[in-house]
C-alpha cells in the first residue's frame, strides 16, 4: 500500500454527526424566545455567558499554561466600560459591548508583560492582585456609583428596544451569538498555526522555542485576546443584570471560582470540557441551589477529587473510553478505501 492511499484528517464520523446535530440545536436555541419562558430565557443567557468564560479560561489555562485566577478583572472591566460608555458618553449599549472588548484588550496589553514576570502559581496570584486593583479603583469613581455601584438608567434600557419582550429577545440573541462566537473562536484558534504552537509550548517550552516559536509573543497574544473577549462577555453579563457594583463586577467566586470548577470538572485542555462542565454546573445549581454554602463546598470537593483522580475531567474520561471527540483538533491517518 502506498502512502497516497492514506489521508490525514481531523474530522471523525462522530464529529461530523455532532456538527450536523449542533446545527439543529443552534436553530432551536435561536428560536428559544418563542418556546422558552422569560425566566428560562434568562437562564439560557446566563449559561451562554458562563460557557464563554469557561472556554476562554480553558484556552488560557488549559492550552497556554497561563493559570489566571484574576479573570474577574476583565469581566468587571467590561461591565463597567459598558455602563460608563452608555451613561457618560451616550453610546448605545449593544455597541458598547464592542468597546468593552477593545478596552479589555488595551488594558491587558501593558498588564501582561508585568504579570509575566511572575512564574507559575505566583502569576496566578498576581492576576488576582490586578483584579483587586481594578475593584478598589472602580470603588473610588463616584460617577459610577463608587463602592455601592449603579443601575443602568431606564432611558438607556428602553433605548435598546421599546418593549420588554423585544429587549429580552435582543439581549438573548446577543448572548447566544457571543457564546457561540467565542466557542467557535477558541476552536478555530486551536486548529490554526497558533494552536499548533500552543500545543508545542504546552508539551515542551524548550523544544517549541528551538523550532522557532516565539513563546512570549504567543502567550501575550492569547492573554490579550482572552482579556478582550472576557471583557465583552462581562459587558453582556451586566447588560443582562442592568446593575453593577465593584463587589459583583470583580467577584472572584462568581467569575473565576465557578468557571474554574466548570472547566476542571468538565475536562481542562479539551474543547468539550467547558461545555460539559457548564451544563453540569447549571444542572446541579438548579437542583441543589437550596443547599447554599454546602453546595459550594461540594462543588469544591468534586473539583479537587476530579483534579486528583481524573485530571482530564469527565469529558477526558468519556473521550478516552470511547474515542469520541466532538470538536476535532487532532489529526489522524485514514486509509483511503474506508473514506
Amino acid at each position, binding site marked *: 500500500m502506498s502512502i497516497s492511499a492514506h489521508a490525514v484528517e481531523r474530522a471523525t464520523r462522530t464529529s461530523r454527526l455532532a456538527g450536523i446535530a449542533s446545527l439543529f440545536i443552534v436553530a432551536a436555541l435561536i428560536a428559544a424566545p418563542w418556546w422558552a419562558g422569560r425566566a428560562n430565557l434568562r437562564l439560557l443567557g446566563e449559561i451562554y455567558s458562563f460557557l464563554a468564560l469557561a472556554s476562554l479560561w480553558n484556552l488560557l489555562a488549559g492550552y497556554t499554561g497561563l493559570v489566571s485566577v484574576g479573570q474577574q478583572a476583565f469581566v468587571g472591566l467590561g461591565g463597567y466600560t459598558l455602563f460608563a460608555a452608555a451613561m457618560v458618553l451616550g453610546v448605545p449599549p449593544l455597541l458598547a459591548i464592542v468597546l468593552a472588548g477593545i478596552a479589555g484588550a488595551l488594558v491587558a496589553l501593558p498588564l501582561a508583560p508585568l504579570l509575566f514576570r511572575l512564574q*507559575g502559581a505566583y502569576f496566578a*496570584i498576581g492576576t488576582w492582585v490586578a483584579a483587586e486593583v481594578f475593584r478598589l479603583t472602580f*470603588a473610588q469613581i463616584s460617577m459610577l456609583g463608587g463602592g455601592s455601584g449603579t443601575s443602568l438608567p431606564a432611558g438607556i434600557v428602553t433605548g435598546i428596544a421599546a418593549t420588554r419582550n423585544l429587549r429580552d429577545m435582543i439581549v438573548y440573541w446577543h448572548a447566544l451569538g457571543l457564546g457561540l462566537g467565542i466557542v467557535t473562536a477558541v476552536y478555530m484558534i486551536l486548529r490554526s498555526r497558533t494552536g499548533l504552537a500552543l500545543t508545542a509550548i504546552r508539551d515542551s517550552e524548550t523544544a517549541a522555542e528551538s523550532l522557532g516559536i516565539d513563546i512570549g509573543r504567543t502567550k501575550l497574544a492569547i492573554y490579550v485576546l482572552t482579556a478582550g473577549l472576557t471583557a465583552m462577555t462581562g459587558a453582556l453579563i451586566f447588560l443582562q443584570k442592568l446593575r453593577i457594583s465593584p463587589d459583583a463586577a470583580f467577584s472572584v467566586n462568581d467569575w473565576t471560582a465557578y468557571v*474554574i470548577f466548570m472547566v476542571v470538572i468538565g475536562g481542562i485542555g479539551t474543547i468539550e470540557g467547558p461545555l460539559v462542565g457548564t451544563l453540569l454546573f447549571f444542572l446541579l445549581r438548579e437542583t441543589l441551589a437550596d443547599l447554599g454554602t454546602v453546595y459550594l*463546598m461540594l462543588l*469544591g470537593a468534586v*473539583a*479537587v477529587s476530579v*483534579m486528583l483522580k481524573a485530571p482530564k475531567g469527565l469529558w477526558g474520561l468519556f473521550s478516552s473510553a470511547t474515542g469520541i471527540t466532538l470538536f476535532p483538533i487532532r489529526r489522524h491517518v485514514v486509509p483511503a478505501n474506508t473514506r
Partner: protein
Amino acid sequence: MDWLNAVLQGVLLGGLYALFAAGLSLIFGVMRLVNVAHGDLVVLGAYLALVVVQTLGIGPFPAALIVVPLMAGFGYALQRLLLNVTLGKDLLPPLLVTFGLSVIIQNGLLTLFSADSQRLPAGPIETASIGLGNGIGVGVLPLLMFAAAVTVIAGLELLFARTSLGRAFRATSDDAEIAQLMGLDNRHVFAMAMALSAAIVALAGIFLAVRANFDPASGPSRLIFGFEAVIIGGLGSLWGTLAGGIVLGIAQALAAQIDPGFQILAGHLVFFLILTLRPRGLFPRMDG
C-alpha cells in the same frame, strides 16, 4: 508627627504581613508549592482560637498553646494525604487543588459561624501603649506582633542553618529527587514543612483575630498581603520577606493617612511598582 507615627505603625503592621508571608515563603522554598488556601488557613486559625477561647475561657495567647499544635497537625495531614499527590512537573494540580480547598474552607466556616464578623477580645493589652514623647505612641499589641514576626523568622533561619530538619529542607529545596536518593523521605519532609507553615499560620491567625475583625471571607486578602510581601522581599529570602512586609505596611499606613479608601489600593500599587522596577524583589535569593 502624624507622618512619622504612620510610618512607625506601618512598620509594625509589616510584622503581621511578614507572619502571613513566612509560611508561604517556607513551603515555596522547600517544595515550590504556592498554597492558594494560605489566607484561608490563617482565618481557620483565627476561628479555631475563637472556639478555644470561648470554650475554655482562657486568653488568646494561652490559647496559642492549643491552636498552634492543632494547626500544625492539620498541616501535616493536609500535605501527607492531599497535597503530596499533586506535586510534580505540572503546576496546575497543586494550584487548582489549593484553590478548591480555599473555597471549601471559606464555605465551611460560613456554614459553621455565619458571615458575621468576629473579634477575639484580649483584654487591656488591646489598648495598652508605650509613649515615646512628642505624641508618638507604640501599641503594645503591634509591638508584640512585630516581635513575634522577628522571632519566627530568626527561628526559621536557625532551623534551616543548624538542625537536621533544616538540612533536609535545604536538600529537597535544591533537588528533591537527589534528596530522596540520599535517603530522605520527601513525603515526610514536605509534610513537616507544611506543618511548620501551618503553625506560623496559626500564630498569624491569632494576631489577626486580636487585632481586627475577621469573617469567613477574610482569607484571600491575607493571602494577597502575604504574597505581596514575599514578592517585594524577593523569593527565598526570609529576612527579605520581613522587609517586604514592612514596605507594604508603610505604604498602606501612609495612604490611610491621606484617605482610608486608598489604604489597600496603595499597597497593591507599590507591589506593582516594585515588580516593574525590581522584578526579582528587593533581596532575591532564588528564581521562581
